[in-house]
């Protein structure tokens, strides 16, 4: 309980003056003996002046520091989880085809040979006799996964998913990698499918080997990822699921490739803002 304030009359008798000065001195003695006391870090600083003691409550920084350190440990643990997730996302993003315009004349593939897969595994619907050579150029990184539009012996242009078996980035499922020359290299893996889109009925046609060269191939095509493993569309659980569009607008063999909307591999402004906050 706080001490009551001193009355402070302007005029005092001698006796009153003695009492007033004595009380002042007594209170001064209490003040000069004030103690500072540590309290909870969440407490409010407070000055207490009672009839026989004075204390000053001071929130403890030591406890606060310990609490902060605990929080920092939790934050570091959460950061580690975030970094692992970011690494997963980066790997998944590295496996996707690059966006942009592809021209058949600028590509990629040189010869059609049979036999070895060389330093690569490839999987897909082997509609024709195309295979991959070790000097194939990835559309994208030299390591990890890429996609290529390949001119086949029948003059069709097929989309294949190819995967390098050496390098820094490995496929998520190691079983997808097969030894050179393995028959599995040609058949059993997941695949990329192309289906022509009908804008009138808003439906896709059946899977086709590729996109025809010249004017015949003009149109819009959906690219679907089909897998033998437990990978399904994260949104609706289907397999195969659409991953992109290819548009061929003219008779020239130029293919416009676009990912579906809300591409998680594209960092948008909102993500950047979140990172800044973190």
């Amino acid at each position, binding site marked *: 309980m706080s001490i009551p304030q001193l009355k402070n009359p302007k005029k005092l008798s001698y006796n009153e003056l003695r009492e007033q000065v*004595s009380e002042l001195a007594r209170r*001064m003695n209490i003040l000069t003996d004030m103690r500072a006391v540590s309290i909870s870090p969440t407490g409010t600083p407070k000055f207490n002046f009672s009839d026989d003691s004075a204390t000053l409550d001071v929130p403890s920084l030591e406890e606060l520091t310990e609490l902060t350190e605990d929080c920092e440990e939790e934050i570091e643990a959460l950061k580690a989880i975030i970094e692992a997730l970011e690494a997963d996302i980066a790997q998944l993003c590295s496996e996707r085809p690059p966006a942009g315009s592809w021209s058949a004349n600028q590509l990629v593939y040189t010869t059609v040979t049979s036999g070895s897969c060389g330093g690569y595994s490839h999987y897909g619907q082997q509609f024709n006799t195309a295979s991959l050579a070790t000097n194939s150029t990835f559309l994208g990184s030299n390591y990890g996964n890429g996609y290529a539009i390949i001119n086949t012996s029948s003059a069709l242009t097929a989309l294949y998913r190819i995967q390098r078996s050496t390098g820094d980035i490995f496929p998520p499922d190691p079983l997808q990698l097969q030894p050179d020359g393995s028959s599995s290299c040609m058949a059993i893996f997941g695949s990329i499918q192309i289906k022509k889109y009908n804008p009138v009925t808003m439906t896709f046609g059946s899977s086709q080997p590729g996109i025809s060269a010249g004017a015949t191939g003009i149109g819009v095509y959906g690219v679907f990822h089909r897998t033998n493993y437990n990978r399904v569309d994260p949104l609706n659980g289907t397999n195969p699921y659409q991953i992109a569009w290819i548009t061929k607008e003219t008779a020239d063999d130029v293919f416009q490739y676009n990912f579906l909307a809300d591409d998680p591999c594209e960092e948008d402004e909102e993500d950047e803002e979140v990172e800044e906050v973190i």
Partner: protein
Amino acid sequence: MSIQKIEIPENPSYQQLQELQYEVTKRMNVLLEIQINPVSKTSFPKFIFAGTNAKLNMPTLNGA
């Protein structure tokens, strides 16, 4: 080292009253000049009233 308490006689004479008033005023003036002294966050807070100065050791994040 803290200052000694003021001795308060039961029935002070005029002379003693003057001395009391003088000492109280002097100490009040010292109190008015109290200094906050930042100390380590792991130190305890402490109030020190010496004859010529008063200070409060206050833990701070950047205290020495």
